C-alpha cells in the first residue's frame, strides 16, 4: 500500500506510546511491502470529548483530519485505533446526511485557515487492510508457538454499528486473521464487550469490573494471550489485570502477534513494553 493507492494512515494520539504498536506495525508492514504514509500535519480527532462538549459540531476535528488528508491526495484513510475509526466514520456519515452541518463545518475549517478540500473520506481499520492481504506466514510456526490459543478481542467500535465492516455482534475478521497466522483462535463470548474506554480515568472501579469479566471469559476458554486492535483496549485490558490482581493474561496488539508468526525478532516488536510479559512465547 503506497501513496499512489490513495491510502493515508491516521495514527491517532495513542499510537506512539502504545505498547509496541508502532514498532510492530512498522516491522510487519515493511515485511509485507506496505508503506504507510501518515496524514501530513494530522490533528487529534477529538474522540468522544468532541461530541460530548459540542454535540454534532464535534465533527469539526475529525473533518479537519480528513480535509488535510484529501488535500494531500488521500482517497481513503486507514487507522489502527477503534476510537479514531468510529469518530472518523461517524463524522463522514453525519456530513453526508446533513448538508447544513457540512456547510458549517467546511466554513469553519476555512475560517481557521484549514484546507479547502473534502472533509469526508472512507475510513478503514488497519485490521481490514492486513487481513485483506490473505495468508501471510511462509514457514510453519516454531514448536513453542504453534498451538498457542489466542483470544481475539474487538472491543466496541470496530464492528458496532458498522455492518459494512463485519458482523456487528459476532465479528470474525480478527479470528480468521489469527487462524491464518497459524494460531488457534479462542471462542469466547465477550469479544465485543466494552473495556470502559476513556472512563477508566474517572470511573476506574466501574470499568475494571468490565475488564475482569472479559479476561475471565478468555481464561475460562484456556486462552494463552489476547490480541487487540486498539491502543485504549490494550491499556485497559492490561492495567486492570494488575490492579485487580487477576491471573495474568498477556495482551498483545494483533500486529505483534502477526510479527511473531512472520518470524520478526521479538525485540523489533516492542514486546518489552507490555506490562504483562508474554512468558510462553
Amino acid at each position, binding site marked *: 500500500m503506497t501513496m499512489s493507492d490513495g491510502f493515508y494512515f491516521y495514527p491517532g*494520539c*495513542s499510537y506512539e*506510546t*502504545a*505498547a509496541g504498536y508502532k514498532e510492530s506495525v512498522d516491522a510487519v508492514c515493511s515485511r509485507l511491502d506496505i508503506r504507510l504514509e501518515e496524514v501530513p*500535519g*494530522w*490533528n*487529534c480527532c*477529538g*474522540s*468522544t*470529548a*468532541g*461530541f*460530548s*462538549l*459540542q*454535540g*454534532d459540531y*464535534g465533527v469539526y*476535528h475529525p473533518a479537519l483530519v480528513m480535509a488535510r488528508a484529501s488535500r494531500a491526495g488521500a482517497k481513503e484513510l486507514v487507522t489502527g485505533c477503534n476510537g479514531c475509526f*468510529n469518530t472518523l466514520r461517524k463524522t463522514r456519515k453525519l456530513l453526508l446526511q*446533513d448538508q447544513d452541518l457540512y456547510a458549517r463545518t467546511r466554513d469553519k475549517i476555512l475560517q481557521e485557515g484549514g484546507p479547502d478540500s473534502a472533509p469526508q473520506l472512507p475510513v478503514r481499520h488497519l485490521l481490514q487492510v492486513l487481513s485483506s492481504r490473505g495468508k501471510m506466514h511462509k514457514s510453519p510456526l516454531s514448536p513453542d508457538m504453534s498451538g498457542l490459543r489466542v483470544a481475539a478481542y474487538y472491543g*466496541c*467500535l470496530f464492528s*458496532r*454499528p458498522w455492518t459494512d465492516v463485519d458482523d*456487528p*455482534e459476532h465479528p470474525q475478521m480478527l479470528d480468521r486473521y489469527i487462524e491464518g497466522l497459524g494460531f488457534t483462535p479462542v471462542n469466547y463470548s465477550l469479544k465485543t*464487550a*466494552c473495556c*470502559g*474506554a*476513556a*472512563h477508566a*480515568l*474517572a*470511573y*476506574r472501579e*466501574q*470499568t475494571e469490573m*468490565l475488564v475482569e469479566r472479559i479476561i475471565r471469559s478468555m481464561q475460562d476458554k484456556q486462552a494463552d494471550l489476547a490480541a487487540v486492535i486498539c491502543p485504549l483496549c490494550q*491499556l485497559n485490558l492490561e*492495567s486492570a489485570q*494488575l*490492579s485487580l490482581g487477576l491471573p495474568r493474561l498477556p495482551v498483545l496488539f494483533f500486529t505483534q502477534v502477526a510479527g511473531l508468526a512472520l518470524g520478526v525478532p521479538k525485540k523489533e516488536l516492542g514486546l*518489552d*513494553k*507490555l*506490562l504483562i510479559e508474554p512468558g510462553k512465547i
Partner: protein
Amino acid sequence: MRFLHSHKTLEPEHQETLSRSFFQGRAGKEVQHCIQCGTCSGSCPLAGEMDLGPRRVLDLLRDGFMEDVLRSRTIWLCVSCNACLTRCPRGIPVPDVMYVLRVMALEHGLACRGYKMPDVYQGFLRQGEKRGRVSESRLAAGYGLLHPSDMPGRLSLALRLLRRRRI
C-alpha cells in the same frame, strides 16, 4: 416513580423550553420513535451503575422531566459503546442523545454533582486545540490535579508505564 432530585431548581417553563429545544434537534426527533422495549438498558454495560437506565432516560425525556435527566449520572456514565444503538429495533442513536444532553447540562449548569467526565473531556479538547494532539499522560496529570483522590490508585500504573517507556 422515583424522582432523583428532590431539590428542583428549574421552573416548569424553563423545563418546557429545554424540552422543546431537545426535541427540535436531530437526536430528539429520533427519540419520538422509541417503543420502550428496554433493549438498550439490557445491553448497556454500565446500566447497573447508572441512576437511570437508557430506556428510562428516553421515557423521562418524552414526559418532559428535563431536569431529572440533565442532572442524572447516566448521561456522563455512558461510554459510547454503541451496543444500544446497534441493537435498538428503532435505530435510535442513544449515544448521540447522551451527547446532546451533556452539552445542555453544562450549558445550563445542571450537570450532576460529583460528575467527573466533563473534566476529562474538557482537558482532552483543550489539549487537542492547544497542541493539535493529546498525550494521555498529560491528560491524566491534568485530571489528577482536579481530582487528587482518584490518583493514588493510578500512581502505580503511571510508574509501570514509565518504566516501560510508555510515558
